[in-house]
């Protein structure tokens, strides 16, 4: 017989006050658990992670939800939340539950260096703060000023990770080609804080948000283009809580609009079968589905195919919510299923538009040894390859 546990309304109130206001809306139907991508992979975490149960434990103030494996298993993909019959903000509830332990100084061991790095260097990758804008050398990128329309905010990953830097450079090249008025403040910026907020470290997020907002406002920033859908989410949905109100778009939205106006054309041919993986933070969280497709399909020679799970049903790469730093054995990562799906559709190229997705899918493709049949590309790289004949 299981040991008797005590219900604690005090604990429930503590969780709710950390940001889980919709926790009591949940009627425990269970749809969330059964749409969760963890159901698609085997393993210990999959067997333990039950989002409905986690919400229930929170509602009753019962111990058990804070088990490291369970509480930090959620990739915040939003599949549960976008289908929830009561529109419970499940991800906010997860974030708040994480905040109850993280706020008291407890992060799982594998995430402590990440938070430490953000504190010390303003980015999660242990990159030196002074080198944040190093990737810009030789690219002649204007600094943001009162006369520039957009601030281009580049994700930390693309400032420090070698492979990811190529994404930043491609995006800059495309924006220039399309004649966008943009500038950067990279050297003075800090991480947008989206993921650390999802991990429950509200204090660190606040520190980042306040420093970025102070910087942006002092320079007169009104509009922001982001290279990552995670930064898009942070500036659009998280920053207003701390006084940062900006018009924020993902680079695909800007480029698609300009392409339709004739300011961006693709003269080169890419005679390949291309498919698109909708990043959770671009698709489900920010509802941008068409812009990337319009851009890809405008490239001459491209044969576009949809993956089985596309648009609002897209299957998460397993990188969000801090999972990009988790150690997960092969065979238990749902990102691998995307590679399998793309290979089954006989696609030559799997395109996506998020730096975390690129990390996860690159990894999965290599792990499954499919690099000889499938190329994983970021969308800006594909578009660049087609800009010249």
């Amino acid at each position, binding site marked *: 017989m299981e040991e008797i546990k005590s219900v604690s309304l005090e604990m429930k109130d*503590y969780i709710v006050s950390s940001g889980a206001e919709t926790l009591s809306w949940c009627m425990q139907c269970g749809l969330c658990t059964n749409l969760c991508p963890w159901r698609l992979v085997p393993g210990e975490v999959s067997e333990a992670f039950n989002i409905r149960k986690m919400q229930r434990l929170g509602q009753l103030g019962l111990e058990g939800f*804070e088990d490291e494996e369970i509480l930090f298993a959620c990739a915040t993909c939003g599949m549960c939340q976008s289908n929830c019959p009561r529109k419970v903000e499940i991800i906010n509830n997860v974030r708040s539950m994480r905040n*109850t*332990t993280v706020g*008291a100084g*407890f992060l799982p061991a594998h995430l402590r260096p990440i938070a*430490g790095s953000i504190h*010390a260097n303003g980015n999660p990758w242990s990159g*030196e703060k002074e080198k944040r804008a190093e990737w810009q050398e030789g690219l002649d990128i204007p600094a943001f000023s009162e006369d520039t329309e957009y601030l281009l905010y580049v994700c930390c990953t693309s400032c420090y990770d070698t492979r990811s830097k190529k994404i930043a450079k491609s995006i800059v090249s495309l924006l220039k080609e399309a004649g966008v008025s943009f500038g950067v403040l990279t050297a003075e910026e800090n991480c947008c804080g989206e993921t650390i907020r999802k991990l429950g470290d509200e204090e660190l997020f606040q520190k980042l948000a306040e420093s970025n907002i102070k910087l942006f406002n002092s320079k007169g920033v009104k509009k922001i283009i982001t290279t990552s859908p995670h930064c898009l989410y942070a500036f659009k949905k998280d920053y207003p809580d701390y006084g940062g109100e900006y018009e924020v778009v993902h680079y695909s939205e800007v480029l698609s609009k300009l392409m339709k106006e004739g300011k961006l054309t693709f003269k080169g041919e890419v005679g390949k079968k291309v498919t698109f993986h909708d990043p959770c933070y671009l698709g489900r969280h920010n509802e941008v589905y068409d812009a990337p497709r319009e851009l890809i399909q405008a490239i001459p020679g491209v044969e576009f195919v949809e993956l089985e799970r596309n648009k609002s049903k897209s299957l998460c790469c397993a990188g969000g919510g801090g999972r990009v730093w988790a150690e997960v054995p092969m065979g238990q990562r749902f990102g691998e299923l995307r590679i399998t799906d793309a290979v089954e559709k006989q696609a030559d190229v799997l395109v996506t538009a998020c730096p975390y997705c690129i990390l996860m899918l690159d990894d999965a493709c290599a792990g499954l040894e499919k690099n000889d049949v499938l190329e994983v590309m970021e969308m800006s790289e594909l578009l660049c390859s087609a800009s010249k004949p």
Partner: protein
Amino acid sequence: MNIIVCIKQTFDTEAKIVLDGNGKIDPNGVNLIINPYDEYAIEEGIRLKEKFGGDVTIVTMGGPRAQEAVRTALAMGADKGVVVNDPILEGTDEWANAEILAKAVAQLPYDIILSGRIAIDDGASQISVRLAEALNIPSVTSVLKLEVAGTQVTATREIDGGTETIEVALPAVFTAQKGLNEPRYPSVAGIMKAKKKPLKSMAVADLGLAAGDLASKMSVQKYTLPTARQAGQKIPGDAPQAAKELARLLHEEAKVL
């Protein structure tokens, strides 16, 4: 069983060390954590309490933020906390610190005293042994395994290339090495309870010490940052050729062989 755990709040392992205008280490904006080695000590203390009953008191010395570290330890399962918070601590050396700590610990009943074997900031690894000397009790450092039976303890400690087993009678001081245990992740209930646990704050004067008693025997002359890491060198050629060239470089340039 009366268990005391001495902890230190240190810079985050990822923190960047910056020197201020006076050549001192700048603590502004740095994230602070419990010294990771002390976490093993806290965990061991709580386990002893679970096995033998009694309570665990956390003792620390530090600045205004040291309380956070104690609250974290209380959330893990410790019962009480004592913080010695005094501006005088900014200038004290290891000897003076041990004197202060000994006075604070002497006020409490103790059967066993635990701590981490080294602090990751200054790496001095002295204070626990000095504390034991000041209290005139034995100390065993770098403990990998602790077996307590009544007032007899069998401690396995790590030495270069192996381990040695020491039998000692309580009271005694033990310092924890990595591998002693796996520190627990606290429950939210524990975190909430921790807010109500008693935490006593005291100044050096409360311990019956005056500044004159604590004149440092050692002073820091200067801090310098390590030289920047140089770019790596790629050695060309096939394996036997490259190995020969590498050996030459290590002998002549790096002077390590």
